[in-house]
């Protein structure tokens, strides 16, 4: 083969490799962004859930013992925040910061205080407490969705980051490996 053909072949190969690397980097970047998006949706809805729980505890429709339990668990959850560093930094905001325990506790307290009987009672009164209960359930449902979607995104990131091309060329940079988030997220009245 002529030298020129060799050169063309080498250039074509180099271009092909470059394209594949940039494609893989873009793919990984999109996945990291998805993890971050799902985590911020999870965070926002957990905060909403805790706020609604606190409102409901203070609304006077619950007996004082239930109200105290719910208020304590809700404010414990509100005190914890996700370890965000910079909001626009894709490498951060990918950790849940060990909130699983307080969120599981809140779920358990909601289940213990807002029993089906209590829920039916509040809903039938149609007052502000009923609206707050609706908000609590809506936020809880979104927590379930966001956690499921987050963990799916984490699985995708981890699979792609296991690829040789990503490891050899360090396409993930210094991004931490995201972790799945696991806690009890049941909602009153789950089907």
């Amino acid at each position, binding site marked *: 083969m002529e030298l020129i053909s060799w050169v063309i072949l080498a250039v074509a190969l180099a271009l092909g490799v470059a394209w594949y690397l940039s494609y893989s980097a873009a793919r990984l970047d999109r996945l990291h962004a998805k993890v971050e998006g799902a985590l911020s*949706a999870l965070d926002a809805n957990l905060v909403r859930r805790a706020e609604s729980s606190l409102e409901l505890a203070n609304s006077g429709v619950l007996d004082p013992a239930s109200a105290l339990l719910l208020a304590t668990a809700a404010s414990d959850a509100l005190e914890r925040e996700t370890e965000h560093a910079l909001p626009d930094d894709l490498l951060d905001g990918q950790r849940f910061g060990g909130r699983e325990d307080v969120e599981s506790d809140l779920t358990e307290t909601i289940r213990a205080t807002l029993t089906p009987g209590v829920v039916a009672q509040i809903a039938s009164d149609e007052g502000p407490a009923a609206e707050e209960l609706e908000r609590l359930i809506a936020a809880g449902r979104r927590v379930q*969705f966001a956690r499921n*979607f987050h963990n799916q995104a984490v*699985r995708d990131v981890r699979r792609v980051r296991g690829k040789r091309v990503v490891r050899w060329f360090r396409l993930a940079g210094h991004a931490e490996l995201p972790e799945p988030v696991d806690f009890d997220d049941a909602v009153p009245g789950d089907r």
Partner: protein
Amino acid sequence: MRVGLVCPYSFDVPGGVQFHVRDLAEWLAAHGHAAQVLAPADDDADLPPYLTSCGRAIPVRYNGSVARLTFGPVTAARVNRWLADGDFDVLHLHEPMTPSASVLALWAFDGPIVATFHTATLRSRAMSAAYPLLRPSLEKISGRIAVSEAARRTVIRHIGGDAVVIPNGVDVAAFAGARPEPAWCGRPGAPTIGFLGRIDEPRKGLAVLSAAMEHVLGRMPGARLVVAGPGDVDGARDAMSPVVAAASEFLGPLSDADKARFLHSVDLYVAPNTGGESFGIILVEAMAAGAPVLASDLPAFLRVLGEGAGASFTNEDSGALASEILRLLDNDGLRVALAAAGSVRARDFDWSIVANDILAVYDTVTPPGLRSRAWN
């Protein structure tokens, strides 16, 4: 919120996925959202205003049955134009693994994507061949929905990962308000048993029911079997024993309104399906219409029936089906109680509840900064 819905199957033919997409689009539009649908359809057909056709569908053998799909460069160009014109906040694909409009839209769209998996019968051989090809674009899906636990297990097994379960919706009020049709109502000593589904599709189980009818007629000679659904009537009649054929009436395919009246009228609705059911929306429709339901014990069916909202029998066991039919026809109080429990259970699947869950998914996958308009 601007929502783009993509249905891979032709809107010219009826089907569960098509009805789901149609009802969801209409519900969204009625509740202040801009919903557009992209689906295969004949261009000269009378299309609803929200529907854009991505081309005429071609019958293709896929995943064990013949599906009417659309693909090719012309379709791809139409998909791209629809996406560009729509400027969607979220794209909601149905059956994203089906080689039709959904796959093309998944490939082309850059933004939050939600996907609903309807089927519980993916073939793993076809999947493993297509998988490396589809995986990078499947990663673009931000939220996966499965319509049932069975569909979710299919996702977990064949695609990997997980999905949230949001069932199919039913317009409960439309079924509950249907007027009974005297011709399909039973009389004392001559109760009617309803069957609904393709009569020449073995998985719908008409053969199991007609074998059971033989026993039923032996004890209750006045009983009648009312069969609704498309298919070859002569063939179905020939497959029955003469005494069962004489006690059977074939109605052919029914309109939506007639289906509701049919379910409202019969004394007992039987779903003898032998498999391949992912969800069982027909059970919900029957319960919403106030029919007592007797279904085969498929996992998908048992889940829909919940605790005591319907009766069940051992799948493919016509003897067990016959004794359950007789037990229920003998006891009016039992049927009334089943119908009442069914009406309550059906409300869990009303569009108002189901669509709110789907909106919650849209909400979860759309970052607040990117959303173009607020919604309630």
